[in-house]
């Protein structure tokens, strides 16, 4: 019998420990420990999901308890998928997701790269950069609302100063063209530090000897960047994208504070629209179908993404 770590561990483990405790088997003890968690998962996650699926085929309204609940088949799904307004909300969400992730990754990685260089005050700068993500989104929303104010807002003043335009001549939150970008700017300001921290962890995990070996091989700095730094940080970057993607898909508070979904419905993300359907209009059945569609979309996209992430990690 070979002396492998597994056999050593098995030999060190006292035989049938569990059975010595009031005659309980290992399996029974495992269930005692895991059971409550499984029960909670079923009660908090699985049951509501099944119940939501059930409601999605009805005309149920949570504010009309006495009303007859009818099965409407696939009507809710059909209405949602053929509603042009909902597709516009989806577009607004996709726009928000794409650009926030794009800028946060670009700026976050750049900042991490710069911060990773050893210089005086390195830690102080890291702390300062990280501050925005420690604030509450509701506070940030209100804060930026004032900054964007055309008459007294600092943002408009700075842009006016730099471009020579009258600060009150453009409205970041009131213009159909600018409002989506105003949200992208705030979200990027707030959450770039998060991406930066993840990238920094990735950069600091690269052993120095790899760069030293590259130096010996006379690889240029650019070559080192693209053949060592980027591939080794990529799994971290992809994780950051996954986290930010999931977070921003359900973005609600920041946008509500900033624009309330307006002007018109320009910045009405799916999360805001879903909340209106479920808790303002009280179309519970319809909103359930809406939630299921979003769930399937996110779950599908996230599954594909995680597979890609695992492949990158395996390389």
């Amino acid at each position, binding site marked *: 019998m070979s002396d492998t770590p597994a056999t050593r561990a098995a030999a060190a483990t006292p035989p049938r420990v569990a059975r010595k405790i009031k005659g309980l088997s290992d399996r029974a003890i495992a269930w005692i420990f895991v059971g409550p968690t499984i029960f909670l998962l079923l009660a908090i996650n699985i049951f509501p999901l099944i119940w939501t699926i059930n409601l999605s085929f009805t005309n149920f309204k949570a504010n009309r308890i*006495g009303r007859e609940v009818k099965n409407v088949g696939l009507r809710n799904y059909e209405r949602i998928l053929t509603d042009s*307004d909902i597709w516009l909300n989806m577009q607004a969400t996709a726009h928000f997701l794409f650009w926030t992730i794009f800028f946060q990754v670009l700026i976050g990685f750049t900042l991490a790269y710069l911060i990773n260089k050893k210089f005086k005050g390195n830690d102080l700068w890291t702390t300062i950069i990280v501050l925005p993500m420690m604030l509450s989104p509701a506070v940030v929303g209100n804060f930026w609302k004032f900054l964007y104010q055309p*008459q007294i807002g600092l943002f408009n003043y700075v842009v006016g100063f730099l471009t020579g335009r009258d600060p009150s001549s453009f*409205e970041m*939150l*009131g213009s159909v063209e600018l409002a989506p970008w105003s949200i992208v700017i705030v979200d990027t300001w707030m959450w770039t530090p998060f991406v930066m921290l993840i990238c920094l962890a990735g950069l600091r995990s690269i052993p120095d000897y790899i760069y030293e070996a590259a130096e010996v091989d006379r690889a240029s700095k650019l070559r080192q960047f693209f053949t060592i730094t980027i591939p080794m940080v990529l799994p971290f970057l992809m994780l950051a994208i996954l986290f930010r993607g999931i977070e921003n898909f359900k973005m609600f508070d920041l946008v509500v504070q900033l624009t309330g979904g*307006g*002007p018109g*419905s320009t910045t009405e993300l799916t999360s805001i629209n879903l909340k209106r359907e479920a808790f303002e*209009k009280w179309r519970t059945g319809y909103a359930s179908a809406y939630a299921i569609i979003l769930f399937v979309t996110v779950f599908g996209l996230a599954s594909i993404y995680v597979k890609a992430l695992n492949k990158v990690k395996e390389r």
Partner: protein
Amino acid sequence: MKSIKLASASVLGLAAASFASTAQAEDLTLCWAAWDPANALVELSKEFEEQSGHTMSFEFIPWPNFADRMLNELNSGGKLCDLLIGDSQWIGGGAENGHYVKLNDFFDAEGISMSDFADATVYAYSTWPKGTPNYYALPAMGDANGWFYRKDWFARDDIRAAFKEATGRELAEPTSQKELLEIAQFFQGREIDGKTVYGASIFTERGSEGITMGVTSALYPWGFKYENTPGSYDMDGAVNSPEAVEALEFYKEFYETATPPGYTNSYMGESLDAFKSGQVAMAMNWFAFFPGLYADPNTGGEKIDFFVNPPQNQAGSTLGGQGISVVAYSDKQDAALEYIKWFADPEVQAKWWDLGGYSAHNSVLNDPGFKDSAPFAGDFLEAMGSVQDFWQEPAYAELLIAMQKRLHDYVVADQGTAQEALDLLVEDWTEVFEDEGKL
């Protein structure tokens, strides 16, 4: 031994007395929006506490969250509120969903007559189905959307001369919607005392009910109707009539040419801020705020005056205000009804008006001195004579959210035409009434 018996009896007596008093005296919670009239009601209610022995607690919610918070409370059968001063639109849902106690028997038993209150307020705040003698609230706070302006600016010779030169008219309170716009456009971007000022602040808020309340202030004077025949839910040709289209185009022009920059999401608070900071010559807002505006040390007093929403094809004002209801989930309904009885008393109603609340009681409104009792009292009476309200259906929230979207898309986001916005609104509303089984 005798002294022990006496002491025991005294202790028992005291305990019994204290038990009896706690059994009768309740701590009632009244829920309302957080605004000036609510503070006046706190003051007024002290008298009720003295008379009844009950204590009053208040739950005041900021306006933007008021409907969300209160409707969630009602829908979940919450016991937070014993008494609720709820929006007029909620009366249908409040009655049909069993949130409000029906008050007919109580009114009959206590001799409270609805004919003692202004007809328009009883119709709007109390009855469901509309106009039937089924009462779910007592009119508590009469209100309508009105206007106020910088009287001191209107009185200045240089400004008057400039206005006359620009329009050929004397600068005075507008007598039509179009005159209102003309005056607002005159002030837009004008320099007064070295400061750039703007025409007027109007409602454009997207999240709750703001832009709907603002736009209907133009729609009603143009003759807007929700249905071709009342009760028919036949909206095509009424909601999107040529008059309605013209009124909506008018509001958009008003927004684009006569409001301060950045007022893309403004409601009550923003309107008050714009006026009090000296930014605008005129502003729309609910009469409920007028006592506070008049008392403002900077822009109130001699510097302010008020006018009713001007007519166009007809007189018309958007109804605000609320009725007071007893919440069906309350465990203290008897005490809550006592409050209603006390509040309905003509003397209390007179004090309510004196403190800044808008009584709907005829004894207050028909008093010969009422019109002169405040600078806005006459305008209030006039406004209440021509008020119209939004749908009061149980599905009012769905109807309101649809209108908010269509109006904001057109007026603020500049998408489509007025005709398209109203046509889409008819489609939205038709779908809601189909779901409700009314079409």
